[in-house]
């Protein structure tokens, strides 16, 4: 597949054109908090050297709250009504590679055996154009889990900021190729050797650990004193899991309803919340924050790998940056690596 050059101005024109075609265009919001569907190209915030937004973009594939179906009920019976079909096409522009990489990771859990078409449909309807990352801080660790600042997993195309202010557009998938062929008037021909990226102000992430070694330790040490102190200061909020691009636990509840009508919702939930595993009888298999924190680490770096040969993490560091009590997942991995 062919690569291209696109100027910053043409990105704007392309985006407005895409919006005109009735697509949504989603990019990081200027506040740095979340991803937003923009109304005009002027709202675009494509910055390769910015800190990852506080929330990942998983909300657009796996919404924080989503109706699964609606019911109408009377004494004569019940009728189930499908939620509105997921048809909107969406262009994701300027996502970090660590954000895009979460999509195929989540696809695995949403598709082993039973297929969650709510998730699949959204992925199917999306074109993800990521931006080579020129950022790192004390909490990033993409390079320790097999990704990098230019990892292509989950991206349909990837932009790389060039020294002359334009972008090198590398097409990754057929879907990306088809998409950009529709907008070829904004693209200039190029070849791989024309790719002259800007120099990153930031070095590669400083956090380094050997995931294979960490996995080996986790395999053998479900019980270990190490866990005891970890949960000590954790306040048991769900921040780390909610900002995470790969955490996918959810709850199913009937809400916003009365006897006659209502909906069944699929809502983000968190293994860090104390009620998550609590049985109606009162018994709670994970009855302390230490156990709940261990679950998070084990799920990400062992259980998921056991099942899907992949870690449930993209090294974006959001959980650590946002943690109110400074629990540092990369730091924990480094400590495990040194055991």
């Amino acid at each position, binding site marked *: 597949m062919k690569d291209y050059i696109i100027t910053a101005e043409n990105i704007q024109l392309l985006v407005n054109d895409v919006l005109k075609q009735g697509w949504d265009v989603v990019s990081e919001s200027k506040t740095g908090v979340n991803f937003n569907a923009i109304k005009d190209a002027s709202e675009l915030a494509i910055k390769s050297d910015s800190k990852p937004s506080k929330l990942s973009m998983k909300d657009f594939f796996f919404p924080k709250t989503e109706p*699964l*179906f609606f*019911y109408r*009920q009377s004494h004569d*019976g*019940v009728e*189930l009504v*499908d939620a509105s*079909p*997921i048809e909107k096409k969406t262009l994701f522009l300027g996502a970090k590679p660590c954000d895009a990489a979460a999509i195929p990771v989540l696809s695995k*859990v*949403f598709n*082993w*055996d*039973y*297929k*969650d*078409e*709510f998730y699949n*449909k959204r992925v199917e309807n999306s074109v993800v154009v990521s931006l080579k990352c020129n950022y790192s801080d004390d909490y990033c660790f993409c390079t320790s889990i097999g990704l990098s600042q230019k990892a292509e997993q989950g991206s349909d195309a990837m932009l790389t900021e060039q020294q002359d202010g334009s972008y090198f557009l590398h097409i990754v998938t057929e879907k990306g190729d088809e998409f950009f062929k529709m907008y070829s008037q904004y693209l200039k021909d190029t070849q791989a050797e024309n790719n002259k990226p800007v120099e990153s102000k930031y070095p590669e992430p400083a956090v380094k650990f050997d995931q294979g070694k960490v996995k080996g330790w986790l395999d053998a040490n*479900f*019980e270990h004193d190490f866990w005891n102190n970890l949960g000590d200061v954790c306040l048991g909020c769900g921040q780390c899991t909610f900002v995470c691009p790969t955490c*996918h*636990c*959810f*709850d*199913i*509840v*009937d809400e916003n*309803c*009365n*006897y006659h009508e*209502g909906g*069944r919702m*699929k809502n983000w*939930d968190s*293994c860090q919340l104390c009620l*998550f*595993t*609590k*049985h*109606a*009888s009162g018994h709670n*298999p*994970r009855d302390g924050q230490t*156990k709940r924190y261990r*679950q998070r680490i*084990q*799920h990400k770096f*062992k*259980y998921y790998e*056991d*099942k899907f040969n992949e870690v449930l993490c993209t090294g974006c560091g959001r959980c650590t940056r946002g943690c109110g009590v400074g629990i540092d997942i990369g730091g924990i991995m480094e400590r495990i690596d040194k055991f």
Partner: protein
Amino acid sequence: MENIYKPDLAEVKEIIDETADTRTLRLQFKDPEVHKAFSFKAGQFGEYSVFGEGECTFCIASPPTRMEYIECTFKLVGKVTNALRKLNVGDTIGLRGPYGNSFPLEQMKGKNIVFISGGIGLAPVRCITWNVLDLRNEFKDITIVYGARRVEDLVYKNELEQWKAMKDVKTYITVDPGGETPDWKGEVGFVPSIVEKVAPSGENSIAIICGPPIMIKFTMPVLQKLGFKEENIITTLENRMKCGLGKCGRCNVGNVYVCKDGPVFNYTQMKALPDEY
């Protein structure tokens, strides 16, 4: 778009009060075609829902050999079970499933089977018991040990009588000491000690055991003393579930999803699990 979370509609055909707080619902899918197409194996579970209240997970308590009704038995513990209790005959509920693995029926054939259960733990055991009894010739000796705290806590009372009346089944019904009534004719004692007294041989045998953790804990050494191999002691795990589909991340014990890899586990598998259930 296929929607794995959307249940089929089923009608409550009959309500049976087992004890003061435990009830069985006999269900039929509203759509006869759906009912005809529905098949499951003993040990699998379903997600039952009351619209506006939510979903709840129970094993299918009726056997796959008797498909006229799908039955579930539940104890009043929380929001959804409370709503399920308010249902009348003719009301509609949602049902999706079957989910999870099942008891190893094929592997059980040609062997002696011992069914051990306590309290509402009889629900999954009842399913496999009838399944086995309906195919009686394919199994050797059958022993049933069931116990509850008090006489009034015994579930499926009619069926217990039917089992007792069967000549080719040894049935022992027990209540905890102090739980007997003046006219109680069954055993008195905890389930582990009744199993010890009955002493079924572990030779060419499979034990199916479900009930309170404390009962399982004290019955295990008895079974091992009787010569049951660990892989031939089979139980079901209950963990809080929501989706039943291996997605919502709630029921895992270590890297095992109870909803997909379970709920049926043998004792060898159980021992490999971390203590989080």
